[in-house]
Each structure stands twice: as structure tokens, then as C-alpha cells.
């Protein structure tokens, strides 16, 4: 329970604050337009549709301001860096940036729908007023035009077209209408190409279409420039609408009722979005600068099962365990940046990534690398990063249980290497004395390189007589009859048939009760930190086990579950 609050409490709090601001803006502006005296005459023509259009507009201003911020990853990194002293939970919130971006996008879509429907009603009723379908007051108000001593209320002036086509004509000939149609269309295209199906399988369509946001923001800024949302201004002498609304014929003839004057609202959207737009431009410029920085290849290795290892060097590059970088290869695609978790430790003087063949971009990269002659430098590569929460807590516990499932094992390459380097250098930051590593995967296909890493660590530990430092167990959950046959034949060999490691591979899922029992038995007085990189369901199981096997007695073993999102 405590974990739940710590892990999710802050997110929920931020969401509640965001929702509260949205609701406040909606309600405030709704009543501003629905009750304000200066809009009395406007409301006479439009009814509550005026307020229904302006309230979502305010919410849209707020959310369009927010939507650019979560995708400024360099800015977020900067903020995260400044929170080094503060709570870890603060830093983790910044990693949920994409979820927030999507949430804000859905809100924008919903509010756009409400805004558009309200404006459809507005345009229709303005048109009807202009056609003289409604009462005398409406007709009189609509007849006010922009001359030397009158200002208009009803933005529709034309009457000479087919009345059914006037609304369409009006929308396509005003700034607000035209920009509105264009940006709504952009928004629809962005949303349909961002659906999970398209994003996961055809990333390029998603990425290129998403750049329509440039048109979206350009149109948004100019959307209010026409100033067609009209309010009544104070005249001298003042025009009292309560008195004058029934005395239309006397307007301009009696001193109590001069002709009412109107003005349009000052466009405000640019004030909301200019800040984030500037920040985003800075972000893109920074990415471009990073892209220009020289990245040299230290080593390029093709690993089994179409896994490519790239070891690179970049001046001024500093990483921490468990972080990821974005790579861009102009030879393959000018605009695409793809994220990869780093597999090297910060103690090494290079950084490495292991790239699996998983789609268009990765396949082309592996192709290019395979065709390179021995020892040649690879194609130009832009590197942006590092990003992500550093998983520094791993070093704080005396005993660590690390659980990596499937592809989740990748950040552990970095962590294990770093722990080993710190141990060799007797780094005081490292309080770990014993590690239990559990590797769960359906098949070792594409992870042979990780098995190699474990072999190297195993050998080094043997040389130093530190065999007990790292205990690792591999669980193959996708075994079948042929595996069994293979193992039966070679059961008495020293090393495991699958991985070549000294510790034998287990088949099926681990029995966590037994594992926790063993850890507790071997470490009767320690504080044990459990870290998982894998599916949610497994996280819940481990959390329960941690609670179950922790002892109330402070002198005995205590398990702490850390839900890290690598």
C-alpha cells in the first residue's frame, strides 16, 4: 500500500491538479460569456451556444500550451537533473511524459469537437438572424455594419448567395473559419495516424504526419485574428440594453439609447502557446546540434541472432546506469530518431547499445553494418541523450535481487557491469555485497550476447575467488521436448547446454516462494532491494512476496520492492 502511494500518488496528484484547472477554466469562461453584460446582445443572437463555444476554447488554449512540453526531452532531462537532491518520485513523473502527451491530445480532440459543434450552431443562427428569420431585435442587431459611426455585431454580412451556402462561404472566407477548418483537419490526420496500430507497425507514417502540428500551431495562433466574437463597448452616453432592447426604432434618436457599439475580443491564444513553442524550437535546435556532434565508432560487432552491438565514443557524453539514447542515421532516414537502452557501464570510456532486428530501420542498419569492411568506421550517427531515470538505487542495498524478463534484461547489462566495476575499484558508493540475478525469457534467441556477458563476469569472479558475489539463475519459460532431449543427453557436463554458463538453466517459471526463502536463509540480517524490469503482472507478484517475506523484527531480513521503469 505504501509502495502504491509512493509510486502512484504523485502522478494522481498531478492529474487531479490538471483536471481541476481544466474544469475551472471551462466553468469560469462559460459563465463569463453566459452572464456577462457586454455579451447580452451577442447572446440574443446566439443563445448559450456562445458560452459553449468559448469555454472549450479556453480549455484548448491551456492544453495546446501543455502539449508541447512533455515532448521536449532535453528540457525534461535538464529539469530531472536539477532534482538530483529531491525525491526520486519527482524524477519518475517526468518519465511518464508520453502518457501525459496522449492524455492532453485526447482532451484537445474532445474540446475541439465541442467547440466546433457550438460554432456550427453559432454560424447557422447568425445566418438566420441576417436573413431576418428571427425577431425584430435580431434583425436590427444584424443590420449593424462596419461604417463610420456603427460597428457590426453579426459577422455575416452577405445576403446575396443561396442562404444554404452562406455558412460555408462565411467559414471559408474568414480567417477564423479557414484556419479552423485547416487546423481541425490537421488534428484529425494527426490523430488517425497516431492510433496504436499505425504507430507500432508503420512508424514513418506516424512520424511524418505528426509534423502537421506545425500547421496546427500556425493556424491556431491566427485563429482569433479576425476578432469576430463581439462584445458591446461602453458608449458615451451609455446604451442600457435593459431599457433599449424594446425600443429599437429609437436607437440613435433618443439620448438614453445611442446606437450600440461593438468590438471584437483581443486574440489571446498566442499568449498561451508562444512560450512552449519557443521551448520546442530550442529543443529541436538542441537535437540538431547534438546530431552534428561527432560520434566515433570504437567497435562494431555482429552478435548471434541478428543483434548488432555498437560501441561509440562522443566527447562530453556522460551516462548513468539504465539510461537510453536516441539514435539517428541519416543514411537510412533523415528525420527518424529511435530509442535504445545503453548496455555499457558509466565506468567505461565508451557507450554501447545492442540493437535487435525489429523493423525497417533496424534491419537497414544491420544491413549497412554487415557490408562494412573490417575495421572501417560506420555511417554517420547522431546521438541524442542520455535520457531516463538513472537506477542509482541499485547500489544502495546490501543485497540486491534483480529480475529481468525478456527484453527487460537489457538495462541490467549496464547495471551488472557497473556493479562489477565499482566492486573492483572498491567504490564507496557501492554498498552491495551480494547479488541475485533472475533472468526470465521465453528463449535465449537474441540474448546470447547477454549470456556472454555473464560468462565474462563469472570468469572474472572465479579469478578473484569471489564466486559468491553474483548468483544468477536463468529461467527458460518457452521450453519444449527437444530442449528436454538435449538436456537429458548432456546432463553430466560442467557447463549448461543452453548458455555455456556454470549455473544450470532452469525450465519454466521460478517458484518465487523458494527463491525468497533461499535469499532470506542466506542473508538473515540484511536489507534486500528487489528490482524488476519486466511485465506488470510479475511486479505485483514480487511486491506481494516482498511484503510476505519481510520480517517485522528490524534485525532480520527485510525486502523492499522497487518498481523501476527503465
Amino acid at each position, binding site marked *: 500500500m505504501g509502495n502504491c502511494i509512493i509510486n502512484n500518488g504523485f502522478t494522481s496528484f498531478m492529474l487531479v491538479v490538471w483536471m481541476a484547472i481544466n474544469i475551472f477554466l471551462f466553468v469560469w469562461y462559460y459563465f463569463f460569456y453566459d452572464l456577462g453584460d457586454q455579451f447580452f446582445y451577442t447572446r440574443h443572437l446566439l443563445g448559450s451556444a456562445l458560452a459553449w463555444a468559448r469555454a472549450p476554447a479556453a480549455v484548448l488554449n491551456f492544453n495546446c500550451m501543455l502539449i508541447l512540453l512533455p515532448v521536449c526531452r532535453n528540457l525534461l532531462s535538464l529539469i530531472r537533473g536539477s532534482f538530483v537532491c529531491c525525491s526520486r518520485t519527482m524524477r519518475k513523473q517526468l518519465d511518464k511524459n508520453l502518457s501525459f502527451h496522449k492524455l492532453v491530445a485526447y482532451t484537445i480532440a474532445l474540446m475541439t*469537437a465541442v467547440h*466546433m*459543434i457550438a460554432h*456550427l*450552431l453559432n*454560424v*447557422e443562427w447568425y*445566418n*438566420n438572424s441576417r436573413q431576418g428569420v428571427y425577431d425584430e431585435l435580431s434583425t436590427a442587431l444584424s443590420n449593424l455594419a462596419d461604417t463610420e459611426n456603427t460597428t457590426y455585431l453579426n459577422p455575416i454580412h452577405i445576403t446575396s448567395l443561396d*442562404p*444554404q*451556402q452562406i*455558412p*460555408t462561404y462565411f*467559414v471559408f472566407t474568414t480567417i477564423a473559419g479557414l484556419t479552423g*477548418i485547416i487546423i*481541425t*483537419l490537421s488534428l*484529425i*490526420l494527426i*490523430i*488517425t*495516424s497516431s*492510433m496504436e*496500430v*499505425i504507430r507500432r*507497425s*508503420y512508424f*514513418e*507514417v506516424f512520424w511524418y504526419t505528426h509534423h502537421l502540428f506545425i500547421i496546427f500551431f500556425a493556424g491556431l495562433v491566427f485563429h482569433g485574428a479576425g476578432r469576430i466574437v463581439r462584445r458591446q463597448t461602453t458608449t458615451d452616453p451609455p446604451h442600457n440594453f435593459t431599457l433599449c432592447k424594446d425600443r429599437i426604432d429609437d436607437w440613435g434618436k433618443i439620448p438614453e439609447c445611442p446606437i450600440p457599439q461593438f468590438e471584437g475580443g483581443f486574440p489571446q491564444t498566442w499568449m498561451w502557446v508562444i512560450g512552449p513553442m519557443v521551448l520546442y524550437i530550442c529543443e529541436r535546435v538542441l537535437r540538431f546540434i547534438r546530431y552534428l556532434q561527432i560520434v566515433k565508432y570504437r567497435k562494431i560487432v555482429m552478435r548471434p541472432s541478428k543483434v548488432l552491438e555498437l560501441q561509440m565514443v562522443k566527447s562530453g557524453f556522460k551516462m548513468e546506469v539504465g539510461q537510453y539514447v536516441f539514435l539517428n542515421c541519416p543514411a537510412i532516414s533523415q528525420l527518424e530518431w529511435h530509442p535504445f537502452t545503453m548496455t555499457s557501464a558509466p565506468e567505461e570510456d565508451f557507450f554501447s547499445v545492442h540493437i535487435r532486428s525489429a523493423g*525497417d530501420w533496424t534491419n537497414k542498419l544491420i544491413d549497412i553494418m554487415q557490408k562494412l569492411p573490417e575495421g572501417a568506421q560506420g555511417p554517420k550517427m547522431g546521438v541524442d541523450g542520455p535520457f531516463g531515470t538513472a537506477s542509482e538505487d541499485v547500489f544502495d542495498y546490501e543485497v540486491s535481487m534483480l529480475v529481468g524478463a525478456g527484453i527487460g534484461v537489457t538495462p541490467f547489462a549496464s547495471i551488472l557491469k557497473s556493479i562489477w566495476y565499482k566492486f573492483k575499484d572498491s567504490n564507496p558508493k557501492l554498498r552491495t555485497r551480494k547479488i541475485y540475478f533472475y533472468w526470465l525469457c521465453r528463449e535465449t534467441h537474441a540474448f546470447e550476447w547477454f549470456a556472454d556477458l555473464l560468462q565474462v563476469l563469472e570468469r572474472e569472479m572465479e579469478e578473484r575467488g569471489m564466486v559468491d558475489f553474483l548468483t544468477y539463475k536463468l529461467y527458460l519459460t518457452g521450453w519444449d*521436448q527437444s530442449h528436454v532431449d538435449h538436456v537429458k543427453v548432456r546432463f553430466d557436463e560442467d557447463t549448461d547446454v543452453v548458455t555455456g554458463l556454470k549455473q544450470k538453466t532452469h525450465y519454466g517459471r521460478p517458484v518465487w516462494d523458494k527463491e525468497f526463502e533461499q535469499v532470506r536463509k542466506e542473508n538473515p540480517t540484511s536489507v534486500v532491494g528487489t528490482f524488476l524490469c519486466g511485465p506488470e503482472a510479475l511486479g505485483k507478484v514480487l511486491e506481494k512476496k516482498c511484503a510476505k517475506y519481510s520480517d517485522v523484527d528490524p534485525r532480520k531480513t527485510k525486502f523492499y520492492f522497487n518498481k523501476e521503469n527503465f
Partner: protein
Amino acid sequence: MGQIEWAMWANEQALAAGLILLTGGVVGVAGQFRGWEFAAYAVAAGVFVCLLEYPRSKRAKGTSVARSGQYCFTVCVKAFGPLTRNYYVRAFLHAAICVPGGFMLATVLGCVCLGIASLIYLAAAIRGEHWEPILPQKDTRKPVAQSIKNPPQNPPPRPPAELRRKPAKDLESAAYDNPMSVTDE
């Protein structure tokens, strides 16, 4: 962009366009706009487009993710055979459906979105894509592995019964020499 199946995006766009057309039509009818007859048409057209586009096609490469509850729609759409299978037909159908939407403001956006979907379908058709229904897989049992051997049907070959019987009278010839010593020496 070699692996793109344009039809997947056209499908999303057309479904969205159907919903927008439907919404615009409902607003036009409910608000009794001028030209509400076009809005009524848009409601019907929007519903039709949504029903047609709801079942996702099976992808040529990769796993297809069906929309929830799409099986009934798949069966209906499949029943029209080549009319729904071919994307040229769909492209022209959508282009034709969207035109009346342009005559009234409330439905203009739906019209434009559907027009765009029609263009993407045309691109898909030119690239040779077509609609395949996603049907539930029949369970194919794995054939029994060849390594399981049948138990032998016949006893192993033996010499005829007369030779096997040990001759009771002739003990000497009945005995045989052990290849290895069986005594404790």
C-alpha cells in the same frame, strides 16, 4: 516506407470520417439547419461508412489486431465479395458518398475527411492491397512427432521351435560356452 500498408491508415481515417459525418449530420438535423436534408443523408452515410470500415482487414504481413466485436461485421462485409474486397471500389464509393456532404457547412468536414480517406484507399489499391477478413483460427493439432515409434508388431525372429528346445538326452551339446568367465576366479 516500403512496408506500409496504406489500407490500415485509410481504414482509420475512413472510420473517423464516418463518425465526423455522422456527428455533423446529427447536429444539422437536431438544430434544424437549412439544408437539413443533406444532414439527414449525412447521418445515414456516416452510419454506413462506419459499418463498412469497422472490421479491420487482415494484414498481408504481421499480426492483425481485430477491433473488439468485429466478427459480425466481418461476416457481413465479407458477404459482398469483390465489392468490399477491392479497394478501388472503396475509393470510388467513398468519393461518391462524400460529395453531398459538401453542400452544407455541418457536414463539410466529414466530406473532406472522407475524401482524404478515399485518396489513401486509392493509393492502397494501386499498390495491390485488398481487404481480407480476419476469421478465427481453427485449432490445428500439431501432428504427432515422428520420433514416437510404434511398438513392434511382430516378435523378434527366432529359430524354429525344434532347434530351440534343449535336447534332454544330450546334455553336452545343450550346454554353451560363455564368452566371459562367470566364475569367481
